[in-house]
């Protein structure tokens, strides 16, 4: 029980610092990757909160597919910006 709480506190700290990084980062790519990291830490927190279904969904969708959607759109925009 205590171990779970400590792990939860570490994860909370990690996801909050990733979120701050996502807001403060100068490059948009770093911000997108940090947002994916927030999702990944949140999915481990879902696992601690006894929600394995939600954890799987968040890991696959929130941190996987969302990040790639951003990267695809950024690639499109950068290619057009250089033309």
């Amino acid at each position, binding site marked *: 029980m205590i171990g779970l709480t400590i792990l939860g506190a570490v994860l909370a700290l990690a996801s909050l610092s990733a979120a701050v990084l996502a807001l403060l980062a100068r490059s948009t790519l770093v911000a997108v990757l940090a947002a994916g990291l927030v999702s990944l830490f*949140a999915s481990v927190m879902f696992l601690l*909160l006894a929600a394995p279904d939600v954890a799987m969904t968040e890991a696959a969708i929130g941190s996987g597919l969302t990040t790639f959607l951003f990267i695809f759109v950024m690639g499109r925009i950068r290619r057009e910006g250089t033309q």
Partner: protein
Amino acid sequence: MTLVQISLATGFALIFLGLYGALSNRNILRMIVSFTIASTGVNLVLVAVGYLPGREAPILDTIPVASAAERITDPVPQALVLTAIVIGLGVTALMLAYAYRLFRARGSLDISDFTELKW
């Protein structure tokens, strides 16, 4: 602090950070990133509200059915959050597609370049 309080506090803090980022950024892509952070926070708050300390996941493979009501956490918020995550990806994809269209129209991602709806 217990695990529930830590998760609730994290979820609320993620909502703050996300909303503040969405309000203070000028770049449309950065606003969308902030929205995804805020939606992660909302999901975390919902799941934390459904968690009962010391209980197990609502999957009855080792838990006998008779004692299920005393040993599992609330499954309803989990089902709702599952739905919310999937819809969240759809919303993000839609926002990104519109952001790309705006970039095509004006050649810029800065929100202050789009003044048609201002009055």
